[in-house]
């Protein structure tokens, strides 16, 4: 382009044929180098190992570029061509991509090529093609000017390599530091997860054994008990069950707090809501509560953690069943919005006092009327629900009227893109 513009519009005398041939060769080997680099990048992605010849390819291409730039200069005015400063760009790229030693070697090659070009033209061994139309008088045989200019340029190249390499080395050190820190963090995360799962296993394991042994006695599988024995064993059994539920919920919350990652996948929301409905059916039947659901047909697939979403809906349903009087109805509505889905869990239960509604998602908080109505409860269920919703980039809100009922509204983004 530069050759075309300079010769056509500014009438600068140029060795057009030679320059166009050089351009074609340059384009051809750049395409080859590009393909090689792309192959090496894919190789790295596939195997996580750098392609073994990558450094040699970059060195080779860089050296070839310098040789071509010298040839371009030769056919367009030699040391007089202002494009001579383009050597600087190559030095910057070399310093970023190559090692410090290799970068200095490239600077030395560039200097050597420049000196050789100037010397050969000066001695008349190769012809000099002046930039007539651009420069008024030919200076290629003015030794002081030509070699002085090359000397200044060479020192600039070395300085550029020195400064860029220093920055590149520091940047590489930081990058390595971040990489190592990332590996360390992942390892810590793995150890923490292992620790939590071990603690969870041990605590729940002991409780499970106690409860299972008591189950056998309470259910008279090992013979009858007298009234007093039955009374005390039943109390112990009841308290163990309560403790199990509490520990289970508390550990679940801890696990969620400590775990940074959640396995997100596409899953069918309609089926997940139905699974949650099935899981609480028994609890509803025990209180003769009818659960109705209205799931819009356009509620299809969303991205998220299916188990957590099922757990979330089941927990809100269990809550609704717990605080709704016998024989009443609990409703689930799900509809599709603009990039989100709305899920409502509506009960006709005791409601939440207006002055306590702001605290219901707090850990261990239970509304005063909830404590009076149902003695058992951890006060952690809604905190877990909030955590799950927020992990999905969604929102949970509540609308309640005392003695009339409560509605929990969940809005969940359909895809993880919608979160950001």
């Amino acid at each position, binding site marked *: 382009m530069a050759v075309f513009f300079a010769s056509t519009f500014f009438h600068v005398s140029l060795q057009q044929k030679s320059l166009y041939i050089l351009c074609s060769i340059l384009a051809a080997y750049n395409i080859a180098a590009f393909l090689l680099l792309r192959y090496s990048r894919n190789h790295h992605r596939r195997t996580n190992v750098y392609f073994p010849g990558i450094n040699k390819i970059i060195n080779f291409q860089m050296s070839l570029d310098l040789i071509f730039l010298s040839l371009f200069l030769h056919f367009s005015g030699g040391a007089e061509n202002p494009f001579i400063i383009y050597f600087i760009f190559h030095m910057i790229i070399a310093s970023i991509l190559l090692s410090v030693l290799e970068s200095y070697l490239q600077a030395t090659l560039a200097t050597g090529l420049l000196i050789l070009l100037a010397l050969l033209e000066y001695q008349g061994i190769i012809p000099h093609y002046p930039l007539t139309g651009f420069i008024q008088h030919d200076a290629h045989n003015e030794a002081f000017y030509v070699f002085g200019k090359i000397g200044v340029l060479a020192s600039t190249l070395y300085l550029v390599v020195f400064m860029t390499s220093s920055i590149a080395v520091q940047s590489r050190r930081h990058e390595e530091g971040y990489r190592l820190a990332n590996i360390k963090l992942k390892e810590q995360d793995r150890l923490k997860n292992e620790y939590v*799962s071990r603690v969870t296993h041990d605590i729940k394991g002991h409780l499970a054994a106690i409860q*299972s042994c008591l189950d056998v006695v309470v259910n008279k*599988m090992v013979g009858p008990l007298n009234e007093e024995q039955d009374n005390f064993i039943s109390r112990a059994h009841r308290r163990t069950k309560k403790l199990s539920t509490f520990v289970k919920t508390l550990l679940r919350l801890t*696990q969620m707090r400590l775990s940074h990652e959640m396995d997100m996948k596409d899953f069918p929301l309609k089926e997940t809501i139905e699974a949650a409905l099935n899981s609480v059916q028994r609890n509803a039947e025990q209180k003769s509560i009818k659960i109705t659901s209205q799931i819009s047909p356009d509620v299809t697939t969303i991205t998220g953690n299916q188990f957590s979403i099922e757990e979330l809906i089941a927990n809100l349903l269990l809550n609704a069943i717990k605080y709704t009087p016998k024989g009443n109805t609990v409703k689930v509505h799900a509809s599709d919005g603009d990039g989100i889905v709305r899920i409502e869990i509506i009960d006709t239960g005791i409601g939440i006092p207006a002055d306590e509604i702001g605290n219901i998602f707090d850990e261990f908080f239970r509304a005063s009327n909830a404590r009076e109505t149902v003695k058992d409860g951890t006060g952690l269920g809604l905190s877990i629900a909030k955590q799950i919703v927020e992990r999905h980039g969604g929102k949970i809100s509540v609308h309640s009227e005392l003695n009339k009922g409560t509605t929990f509204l969940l809005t969940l983004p359909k895809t993880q893109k919608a979160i950001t």
Partner: protein
Amino acid sequence: MENTKILIIDDDIDLTSALQTVLQSNQYSVSVANTREEGMEKLKADKPDLIILDVMMVKQQDGFEVARELKKNDEFKDIPILMLTAVEDKTGIDFKSEAGDSEWLPVDSFLDKPVEPQVLLDEVKKLLN
């Protein structure tokens, strides 16, 4: 049901005793192994109709390793496995990913400990049918 044999493999002696009593009171023939090795021996000797297996015994993945071994073995691959866990698969650690396979779960059913006797019996009945 007397001819229906169930093998429980779990390192918790108290829990296995309780589960054994619950199942025996429902006329199942139950044998218990408290280690992985003992479990493999009893499996070969007893040829059970159902295996109840703990996820974590000595190592985190013990239960899964046993399950994988069994599913690869032509002699045992059709025996249903009910896995018991004190760390919920659903909501806690994702055992499947840890085992390097996020899709394949080598068991037929999961129950979270503690298991109510009736829930256990219902699940056992379901798997045996």
